[in-house]
């Protein structure tokens, strides 16, 4: 099983519901003055990238769950690892020493440093991790009103994400870096 994310750039209206839902993973940061100083953002794992020139273009950026993850390669203790059952990139906080090389190594800038625990954070957060383990959708996918998000097993040809990948024109971000991300962007 390889779990992957899909984001449809043709449909996303930047409503922010996924981003704000994601903040449910970090209730301790809800009313912090600076919940995410590294991103100057909410305590959430999804951030917004907007092109202000030409046709307005948007990307919603969260962990790409790369098959060839630079953060896993860089991690000295093996705290950052790829979960064999699901293919998701996870963090074992017992082994993490907080060296931040995973944050530096990620070419997508998908990681941030939690201001209270000083651990690196990324998608999926603690709540979504449990939801996924129970076979439910992560909070970002569950809320999207524009049906611009999907999540599922790309090794299962019947899954809705596999069908969308087959049916639509999809691309991935920063493919030239060889990270083999599992976050598919429908164009």
């Amino acid at each position: 099983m390889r779990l992957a994310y899909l984001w449809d750039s043709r449909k996303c209206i930047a409503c922010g519901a996924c981003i704000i839902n994601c903040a449910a993973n970090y209730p301790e940061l809800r009313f912090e003055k600076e919940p995410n100083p590294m991103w100057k953002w909410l305590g959430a794992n999804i951030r917004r990238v907007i092109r202000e020139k030409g046709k307005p273009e948007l990307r919603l950026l969260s962990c790409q769950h790369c098959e060839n993850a630079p953060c896993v390669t860089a991690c000295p203790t093996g705290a950052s690892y790829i979960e064999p059952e699901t293919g998701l990139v996870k963090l074992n906080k017992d082994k993490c020493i907080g060296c931040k090389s995973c944050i530096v190594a990620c070419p997508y800038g998908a990681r941030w440093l939690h201001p209270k625990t000083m651990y690196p954070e990324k998608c999926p957060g603690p709540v979504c991790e449990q939801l996924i383990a129970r076979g439910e959708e992560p909070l970002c996918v569950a809320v999207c009103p524009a049906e611009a998000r999907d999540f599922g097993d790309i090794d299962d040809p019947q899954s809705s994400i596999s069908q969308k990948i087959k049916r639509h024109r999809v691309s991935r971000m920063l493919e030239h870096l060889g990270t083999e991300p599992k976050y598919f962007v429908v164009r």
Partner: protein
Amino acid sequence: MVSLTRRDFVKLAGAFAGLALVGGAAYAARTQVQRMALAQKKEPLELQYVRTFCSMCGALCGIEVVLNGGKPIAVRAIDGQPQTGACGRGASLPWLYDNPLRLRKPLKRVGEKGEGKFVEVDWDTALNEIAAKLKAIVEKHGFKSIAITHHDIWSGYMGLFQYLFGTPNRVDHSGSCFGHGTVARRHTFGIEHHRFVDPDYDNANYVLAVGRTISTASMGVVNRVMRNENLRIVVVDPRAPEIAFTSAEWIPIIPGTDAAFLLSLIHIIISERLYDEEFLMRFTNAPFLIKPDGRPLVEADIREGGGTTVYLVMDAAATPPSLADHRRATRPLLLLPEERREVTLKDGSSVRVKTAFELLAERAAKYPPAEASKITGIPKDTIVRIAREFAAYRGVADDTWYAAKNGNEYDVVRALLILNALVGNIDRRGGLVFREDQGFPSFVTERTVEGRRVAETVYGARMPEAMFADRHAPRVDRVKYPENTSTFDVVFDAILKGDPYPIKALFLIGSSPMAREMKTSKVIEAYKNLELLVVIDVLPQDDVDYADYVLPDTIFLERDETTDIKWSLHAATHVQKKMLDPPPDVDARDALWIMFEIARRAFPERAYALGWKDEYADHKRYREEFMKSFEEAVKSRLASNWRMDVAVVRRELDEKGYIMFKPKEFGVRPYRTALPTPSGKVEIYSLRAVTVGMDPLPDQRPPLYTLPKAPNEFYLVNGKSPNVSVHAALMEPMKYLIERSVWMNPKDAERLGIKDGDLIELEGIDTGVKRRARVKVTERVREGVLFTYAQSAGRTSKLLPPDHFAREGINPHHLNDARPAPGTGGNTHNTSVRVRKVM
């Protein structure tokens, strides 16, 4: 003195250092363990999902709230819900529930209005004092001096309050929102509410959104749009709304010139014969013959005793084509042959008539693509392409929602509706359609029972006519602007000048005129002139600083409500479910209870007449008895309206959170049933407009504000995003998700030497009011135009902490001059400004 050898010294220092090291290491370990504990906290989830509808903005989309351990943490969409949410506003509801800003206790003003000084008082004190003041006001000025305004919270109950206080002056915000479109819809279809007329997004091929972003408000609409994989969207707007990030095409336009653009499309479609002739002939008044005075030719004109509403057409079914009653003509001509143009009237004189269609063609011919391009700033070829695409796809032009931008929107919406009619896309699949009748009970109706007129509530209370006579006094804004559904600006005139008659008391229920009305200085002046201002809300909007009393309402997670699904074409109902009590330190009470309790203390007979009892002073009791029977009555009546078993209705609402009564049936009006227009048909040429002295055809009229001319003068347009609402804008996530900057196009920025992040001062050209904001340089706004989000910035309430993020930026309404649009009243959100770089 003990002599210390070198060795001893070293040993001592070493021991000391060692101790310090050990101590430091221990303390470091403790801190590390604490950080780890916080990080490792993997509490198992205790999840609950409760379906309700969202009230973070006025759309009221159906959502599923995710609760963990009884606290709301997130929101989910509901697959299959006719209007499913949720956007960032809905997702931010966990921050509303326990927000430190939440109004907690009744407040009584102690300082001057605007000082923001309050003391907390108990409910009885507040309500009794308000009741006493109200009584005094009514004794002097009558019930009609009480005005109430609201947004979509509690809106179903507002009708009750009019009877409760015997005032006609419940005035909503449509004048600064959808009012202009409402008048245009009434004048074209007879059906006026923006929710009752909407594109069939599920089946449409091509949507033209002019003055409508689609992505800003109802996520239920967004859901339908995005599920339709075949849908092409073209959005025309001075700034790129959020939908421009999708595969939609964004066409920038000069503000206030939408009508010229649309008339140009109409011109191209007519001159290239791309219109649906059949539809125009049979189901619109395009073939109606119009006299030189602009009035339609009727039977009474040509024959003594003829019908005054029997409109005549030239029927080509006869040879030669002759005058006929439009209801009987089988081939009414859209274009008249010259020889048939003279009509002899009953007095023997003759007039040269034109068809409405010809008049429309003439009007549209004023805007050929080259001319329209000059006016709108849109390239000529684009205009031609859109016109041809619209016709080829049989497109649909959205009839707009929040339309009060430049004061000329009546014409814009008329043109939009005519455009839809031209391609015959009315009430067909994929066209501009009329919503199914909801069959949702009115909460209070006037009827005759046993020979006497009463106002009867849905739960069976009856108020005798004598008590509600006042309710039928002319409403202040309707005196001035009878055509519009409301023009709140007139309420301020009534407060300030007593024109047409004085308003002395104002209730703001979940609504902020300072966020939604123009010329904020006038709003503030009006507040200062009121004898009583009561705010019922959940968060400190700017208006609270001027209130005499501020009363905390419950939020939608804390109560039950049943309402029809607002933004669905189907007949469906959904419910709000109580899933929480207010936090322990928040003594919030329902606005409904507040109003009834004030009425009971001031005018007890009126409250009793509407079914209230003294025992309901206990909020718990009111919930358990009054509200419970209210809701049950609503469900009962709803079930009987739909001829269903109420137990079935209740179960569906309980389990699914919604119930679908009837899916949208297409091809009804004007095909099988007449439209409620004078002609019964789609009125390309508005006969109602003729009656009230307005132009029966749309035209490009200038905006109401002074246009920018100098190189440092700009249009200032404002709008929303799916994160903007008066309440959501104060939620912590919006610190990052709403930009409180002013957008400027790079070409303008370069010309003025302004860089991204610079501080500028904007001066309203018509008001001279100055405000400062940071600039965001972006191509997402057209040259010559500045954009800022409304309702979410430049907040001033003293109840907000001094460093609250919502204080940044500007409230553009301060700069606006509040000039009412002729005919419809209603204000303009856009204005013009002069810009100066500060640093």
